[in-house]
């Protein structure tokens, strides 16, 4: 692929080893928790971090090139606009550094700004801009010298919630019109799922999963991947139980599941299962009736997103449920309260090693 990365970076006493590739016109989101190695991976591509391994662009090795010789555009976290230069001088900076004459650089910078940050005064100092405006100027600056690769580092980190949708729309347009490989570093699921064609999940300095947002949602490889795409993930030994059902014994609790059709009724190790948070029902009294899976535990956290609330439960195993905010209010679900969570066995989707993944 045009951008091919396979690098190791030493950071103190740990090593970050990351490998992924990005096609022309493709947006890959590097996602992971703080400290997972996302920014380090980006610095490896940009040439800021010292790496061993491979960073190839269109078959040409970049590893031995200094950052200024790589032709990579980066919109840094918080913008990193130069405080003593005006907005226009900031955007003209990569052009001037590359030897473009003063007037031409200013003209081109002005055009870029008109396109990406029309509301920003080109003569203003960066300190007077809002987070969203800074990010727009940073994007204009990253694109000014027409780089071959575009890297965006946490573009929404310093942006107000109300300014995010508009910035996201602008980023979508900008990414779509950029023809080279595009890399987005983020820890935000919404950004990653809405802007990226493919996700590369990093955990503790390693790539743990690569796939389209949909693939990761259906088959999250790790607990983090499941949390990232908003799914419950379980992993453990599957043992036969009553006719047609089995027990998934995870490290922290058991779940009753439907025994996969055609699978010999013998214990299977290392089975993973997902459960959509929307399939979990919450009760304030012990439920009676059909559900096989009932778990009691305290509410750890209630986070409202739009009209829906994600509820983190301290059950065994730990669960994330999703309810409408109306239901949350009606049931009186607040952090600290003891509740019962239930789900039907058929809603738990199993992924048995060696078997075709269960695609619904």
């Amino acid at each position: 692929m045009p951008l091919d990365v396979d690098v190791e970076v030493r950071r103190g006493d740990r090593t970050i080893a990351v490998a992924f590739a990005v096609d022309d016109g493709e947006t890959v989101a590097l996602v992971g928790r703080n400290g997972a190695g996302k920014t380090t991976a980006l610095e490896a591509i940009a040439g800021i971090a010292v790496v061993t391994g491979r960073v190839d662009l269109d078959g040409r090795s970049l590893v031995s090139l200094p950052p200024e010789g790589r032709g990579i555009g980066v919109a840094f976290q918080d913008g990193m606009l130069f405080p003593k230069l005006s907005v226009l001088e900031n955007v003209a900076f990569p052009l001037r550094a590359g030897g473009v004459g003063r007037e031409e650089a200013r003209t081109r910078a002005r055009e870029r700004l008109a396109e990406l940050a029309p509301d920003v005064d080109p003569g203003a100092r960066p300190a007077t801009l809002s987070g969203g405006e800074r990010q727009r100027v940073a994007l204009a600056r990253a694109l000014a010298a027409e780089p071959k690769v575009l890297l965006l580092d946490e573009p929404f980190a310093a942006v107000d919630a109300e300014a995010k949708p508009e910035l996201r729309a602008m980023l979508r347009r900008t990414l779509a019109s950029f023809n080279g490989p595009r890399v987005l570093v983020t820890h935000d699921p919404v950004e990653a799922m809405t802007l990226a064609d493919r996700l590369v999940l990093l955990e503790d300095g390693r790539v743990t999963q690569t796939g389209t947002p949909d693939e990761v949602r259906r088959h999250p490889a790790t607990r983090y991947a499941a949390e990232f795409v908003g799914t419950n993930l379980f992993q453990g030994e599957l043992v036969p139980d009553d006719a047609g059902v089995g027990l998934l014994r995870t490290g922290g609790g058991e779940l009753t599941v439907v025994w996969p059709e055609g699978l010999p009724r013998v214990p299977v190790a290392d089975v993973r299962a997902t459960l959509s948070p929307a399939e979990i029902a919450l009760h304030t009294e012990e439920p009676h009736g059909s559900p096989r899976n009932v778990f009691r535990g305290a509410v750890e956290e209630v986070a409202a997103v739009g009209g829906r609330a994600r509820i983190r439960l301290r059950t065994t195993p730990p669960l994330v449920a999703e309810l409408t905010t109306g239901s949350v209010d009606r049931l009186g679900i607040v952090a600290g309260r003891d509740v019962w969570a239930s789900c039907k066995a058929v809603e738990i989707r199993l992924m048995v090693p060696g078997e075709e993944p269960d695609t619904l």
Partner: protein
Amino acid sequence: MHRRLPPLSIVLGAIGAAFVALPVLGLALRAPWGRIVEILTGPGAGTALQLSLEVSLLATLCSVVFGVPLAWILARGTFRGRATLRALVILPLVLPPVVAGVGLLEALGRSGVVGSWLERIVGIQLTFHTAGAVVAATFVSIPLVVLSAEAGFRSLDPRFEHAAAVLGAKPGYTLRRVILPMVGPQLVAGAVLAWARALGEFGATITFAGNLEGRTQTVPLAVFQRLQTDREGAIALSLVLVAVSICVLVALRDRITGTG
């Protein structure tokens, strides 16, 4: 809130303040105010003032030209012996100036390690020459520029340098367009302190460059010489240095007094 202070600390503090204020007061009380303009524009004093201005400004320029890159190396370099280099650069701050003068003489004087070579090959003689006075003043003032600039460089987020490099800027361009503008205030403060130090330089100058009127006799040297023969002239010239010192304090008041 009113807080009562221990009486003893008030007494000792008052003595300390008087101790600092009295010499300045003494100069002001004994100054020949009626003739001060006449004295300062007179032949000897005028020459010394003009020479001092030249020497101190040239020394400041040299301190900035060599001190700022040195500060950059100390702030961002990763090499063995960096701590030693920093200690060496700061040494002139604590070294007795007369010792600095002797050192300069042995290094750059006519028979010095480098000085003899300078005279033979390049034809430059620093001793008894204005250039020598500049060298002596630079020696004592360069640490002030280095310390101030290095503190400025260290306070900068290195990600600005990374950003500039990724955007295609070579290190020199980054330093000029991004870094130096951001540390401007610290550079100015360092330069002003260096200039004040250069203006008052005495020991190293008289030891290394000598005391030649019109060539190496700066204001402090002129004050010293006049003390025996022309006390009023010495006081008048001293007052000029007091005035300059007060101006420097006012210019850097936020930085030095810490009162914002």
